[in-house]
């Protein structure tokens, strides 16, 4: 069942027996993989197909994968009954802006920890790491009070606050920037390059794939979040996608076609971004865990 099961070895077991066992193991392996594939994808395929069906066909048994009477009515209804476009644009812009800001400043701080030796470095690094240990649940209520007192509730700027410059991103960027050759930086310095230009001109281009991965992860985090906007946004004309989808559930609980179309459209940007950048994202995320 494991990585080690199929290794060549020069033991005395008869060859034919061995290779039959290996073949069986390999078939078992693929059966397991296809089982999980079905588990992982069925809800999404069901929802995608359901979003193109009239309500009477969504729950027909046995379920039809290809809609028999395909319709886009659920999608057109979505745009005519609720301000879906506004939710969508707000989420995209807030998530994009926050992710760009956080990625830049995570890389800058990661650069400081990776390539400079300075008094207080160790303490500052440990403080940064310790912030990873603070669960959002403890700061939810005080942060809400703080943001409200600052007069920022319902302001777009407030939507970003818990997602600014997470320590996890600094840590990940440090792991990548450490491997940028120091000679490259020294050479640029001798050419008269200032420290900030060094970051922009030398470090950023080298770590571009990792930056892409971090940007995508931050984008997904903000775009998908529900708890913070649910707390800070009360004005329904300033809803984000997750708040809007949740309001669909309460206001149109029986209009399943509408809910399905909404979830599928909301999932679309995340799926596109993920499929385009899947390799960088998965490798970027795991690099920190394995190297650390």
């Amino acid at each position, binding site marked *: 069942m494991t990585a*080690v099961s199929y*290794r060549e070895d020069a033991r005395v077991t008869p060859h034919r027996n061995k290779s039959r066992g290996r073949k069986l193991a390999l078939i078992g392996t693929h059966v397991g993989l296809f089982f999980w594939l079905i588990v992982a994808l069925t809800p999404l395929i069901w929802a995608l197909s359901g979003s193109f069906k009239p309500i009477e066909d969504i729950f027909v048994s046995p379920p039809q994968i290809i809609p028999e009477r395909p319709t886009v009515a659920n999608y057109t209804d979505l745009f005519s009954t609720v301000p879906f476009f506004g939710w969508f644009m707000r989420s995209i812009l807030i998530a994009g802006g926050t992710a760009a800001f956080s990625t830049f400043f995570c890389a800058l701080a990661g650069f400081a920890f990776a390539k400079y030796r300075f008094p207080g470095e160790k303490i500052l690094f440990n403080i940064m790491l310790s912030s990873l240990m603070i*669960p959002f649940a403890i700061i939810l*209520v005080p942060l809400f009070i*703080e943001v409200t007192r600052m007069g920022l509730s319902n302001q777009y700027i407030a939507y970003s606050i818990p997602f600014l410059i997470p320590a996890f991103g600094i840590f990940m960027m440090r792991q990548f920037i450490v491997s940028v050759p120091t000679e490259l930086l020294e050479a640029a310095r001798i050419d008269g390059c200032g420290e900030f230009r060094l970051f922009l001109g030398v470090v950023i281009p080298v770590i571009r794939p990792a930056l892409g991965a971090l940007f995508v992860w931050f984008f997904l985090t903000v775009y998908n979040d529900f708890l913070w906007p649910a707390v800070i946004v009360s004005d329904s004309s300033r809803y984000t996608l997750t708040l809007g989808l949740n309001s669909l559930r309460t206001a149109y609980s029986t209009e399943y076609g509408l809910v399905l179309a909404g979830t599928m459209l909301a999932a679309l940007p995340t799926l596109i971004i993920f499929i385009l950048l899947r390799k960088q994202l998965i490798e970027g995320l795991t690099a920190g865990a394995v190297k650390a």
Partner: protein
Amino acid sequence: MALTAPPSGVTAPRASRRRASFVKIAPYVFLTPFYVVFLLFIAGPTLFAIYLSLHSWAGLGSFSFVGFDNYTNLFTNDDFHAAAGNTAWYVLGALLIVLPLSLGLAAVLNAHGVRWKGFFRTSFFLPIVLSPVIVALLFNILFDTGTGLVNGVLSSVLGVPPVGWLDTPVWAKVTIVLVLIWRYTGYLMIFFLAGLQNIPRELYEAASLDGAGPFRQFSRITIPMLKPVTAFVVVIVLTGTAQIFEEPFILTNGGPGNASLSITQFIFRAAFQRQEFGLAAAAGVLLFIVVFAISRVIASVFGIGKESQ
């Protein structure tokens, strides 16, 4: 790697001196944005949470000091008891089911001769990129007692009577754990997969020359070599599921009764529906202490932290 000023003589002395002094302060300048955010939006609120937890405040007026009353109230609060118990079930479900499952999937995917590895990896990872709101809305429809696909398949294939996935106390918790399994297994798998790929081949070759079979190799090489990754994954799962919110909020609204209420949902209700901000803050502080203590124990059990950095 220590930084020195550019060699003098290459540039004019004054410019070089100015640059040398900026090299000294540059790291502090680069770290400032993070520490400003940290003080304002992490450290500040954390201290404020502790302060708030010792006071009574209903959203208006002044804070009145009540000592540990909020904490003692939590210990006698039925909703909090239920929330703590349910959250413990979610965490245990994730650790005891999701973790082994994701390790198993990683091992299978890492096996020799497996085809379409990239395709499987991408498909398994996919659920985590979807918002928990989207996931909860979909599962809400799929697990509906009357019309849901799950009961439909169960009754037509196995002839089982409809299961009250979302409206009976035990099944509501089970359904939430099922959602966690669906969403997190493929995500955690990628960390184990990366860990497996990091184990040097020679170790297995040497072991098999010494006559160690697959199971011995798995228990003597794979498991010990995966210790650091496992510790990392355990901490992610623990801190993530201890704060679970969207799944119970959207799937069951904590119900029936308070049978699937989570701690974060308890905090949400206490603060934003009942204006008991002190009580909510105390629950947050308690959650933090428990999660922190358990993480420390895990770190010492796995022997990490000593050789870190």
